[in-house]
């Protein structure tokens, strides 16, 4: 188990290193980073001085090493718009985004788990068909449009929920529904098909034959096995949830990372954007690591026979 943990840890570090390359290259995508970082009407000699000061006149590999050594120390540069350390601003907004992502994940799990389980247990019943239609809708509805429609209905017409900003837990509801709807549909669908596959296995027949009730079969035998694909799905969903929360944050003016990043594009505030990309990717890496470990705990085959990965 220890070697498995170490292997996953190294893998996570490798991915983070790759992300640092992406973030670095992002800066050079436009050709000359100085033109992106400085205001458009900067005089040429000031541009030159800036290039020298930031090391932009040195060879790319050296620049990359400088960039990484600063990044490791948490130095992403200075935000031009907020006039302070870029990492500081990003970390300030991080809790709000985590809160939203947690709310969105809870929303999707609370609906998806019972829906998926009922649909599998009562296959082809009315409930199953209802769940399948819901899944179909959830996977096709564009998040930003759902957000606008929810806002029109619940905030503007009915005045039940706040339109935008953050004024307590009620402000979380609509953004969480927006960001979580796609994940809800995917998880419900996966749990249903996972359970259906497990429920056809011989050991389930044995459990039924020895007289266990449906509930016992489900909780003692089926769920743990069906949970494996669903748990791996959560790793994939993290990206969706974070992406979905960006959109929800912008529409509801929710003070999180996504709102900050989209605004920073307008200000051409590259240090904040770079820091945002890195922090988001780091979150995905951490979630993946945790999921890999949970996965191995659920399924001993993975930690014992890991060589095929």
């Amino acid at each position: 188990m220890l070697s498995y943990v170490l292997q996953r840890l190294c893998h996570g570090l490798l991915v983070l290193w790759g992300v640092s390359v992406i973030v670095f290259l992002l800066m050079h995508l436009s050709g000359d980073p100085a033109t992106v970082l400085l205001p458009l009407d900067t005089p040429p000699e000031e541009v030159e001085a800036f290039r020298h000061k930031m090391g932009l006149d040195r060879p790319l590999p050296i620049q990359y090493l400088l960039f990484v050594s600063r990044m490791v120390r948490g130095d992403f540069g200075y935000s031009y718009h907020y006039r302070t350390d870029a990492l500081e601003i990003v970390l300030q907004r991080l809790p709000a985004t985590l809160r939203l992502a947690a709310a969105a994940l809870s929303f999707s799990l609370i609906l998806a788990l019972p829906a998926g389980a009922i649909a599998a247990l009562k296959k082809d019943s009315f409930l199953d068909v209802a769940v399948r239609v819901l899944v179909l809708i959830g996977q096709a509805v564009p998040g930003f449009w759902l957000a606008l429609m929810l806002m029109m209905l619940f905030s503007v017409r009915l005045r039940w929920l706040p339109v935008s900003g953050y004024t307590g837990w009620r402000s979380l509801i609509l953004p969480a529904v927006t960001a979580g709807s796609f994940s809800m549909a995917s998880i419900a669908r996966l749990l249903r098909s996972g359970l259906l596959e497990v429920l056809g296995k011989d050991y389930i027949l044995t459990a039924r034959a020895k007289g266990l009730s449906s509930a016992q079969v489900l909780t003692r035998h089926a769920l743990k096995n069906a949970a494996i694909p669903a748990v791996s799905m959560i790793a994939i969903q993290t990206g969706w949830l974070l992406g979905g929360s960006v959109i929800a944050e912008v529409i509801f003016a929710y003070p999180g990372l996504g709102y900050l990043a989209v605004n920073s594009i307008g200000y051409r505030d590259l240090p904040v954007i770079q820091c945002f990309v890195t922090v988001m990717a780091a979150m995905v890496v951490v979630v993946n690591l945790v999921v890999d470990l949970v996965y191995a705990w659920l399924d001993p085959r993975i930690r014992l026979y890991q060589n095929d990965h």
Partner: protein
Amino acid sequence: MITSQERTGGKELLPGRPMNPGGMIGLLIVGCVLLLSLLAPWISPHDPELQDINRRLQPPTWPDHPLGTDGLGRDILSRILHGARISSGISLSAAVLSGVVGVSLGLFAGYFGGIPDSLLSRIADIQQAVPFMVLAIGVAAVAGAGLLNLVLVLSVTTWVNYFRVVRAEVLAAREEQYVWAARAVGCSSVRIIFRHILPNVVASIIVVATLLIANMMIFEASLSFLGLGVPPGTPTWGRLVSDGREYVTSAWWISFFPGMAIFITVMGINLIGDWLRESLDPRSS
């Protein structure tokens, strides 16, 4: 006579399974959308760019403006019909581009294995650690909005989907007898990959592509909605929804109908994708 299917021992795309009702509805929806977008210039009731200040913010009225008009008095139905061309064009070209990259790399990595395979697989891992929206924001910040950038961002973030599926299938196919036989008669690697393995992977590629096109439509619309996708003034469906943002309190129809267009189209594509996937893999139904 031996058909190529038999020679390579392949599975058919739809091995004699009857069409399910979902797939039928999906084909119908997508067919209608494609037809309407092709015919857009002839069937649109108005010029999509024609502004009429006297008729701004008109609610849906038959037969003049069946879906209403926007803040500049432009006819929403006409704009949706014209927007269909751009939205589906972007999604299709991005799906093809990322498919070409992902499939070739997947074939290469799966067939040759070894260091190139580990390297490409690690790159795929790294790529997946950066969520689509996040990378798109990064690129938009540096390179700016634009059609080409949009297609590139969509392709860069989705090639992994093809790569993983194709690589896994090639890994399995590499040990099949027909590949051994081809090797024994002295076929070159290139010939084996393209003549013998590729036809067997095509079915999976089509499923991935179908489901990806649906996602691409949503991605494209989301980015255009945020103002990070197509240039301002281009009537893609995402843009049309965002046109209605400032009228959320007064004119619901501006955002509602373009969003419905996205929703219905994506659902149609997903239905086709599910049907294809089920016919290929009966277990996943």
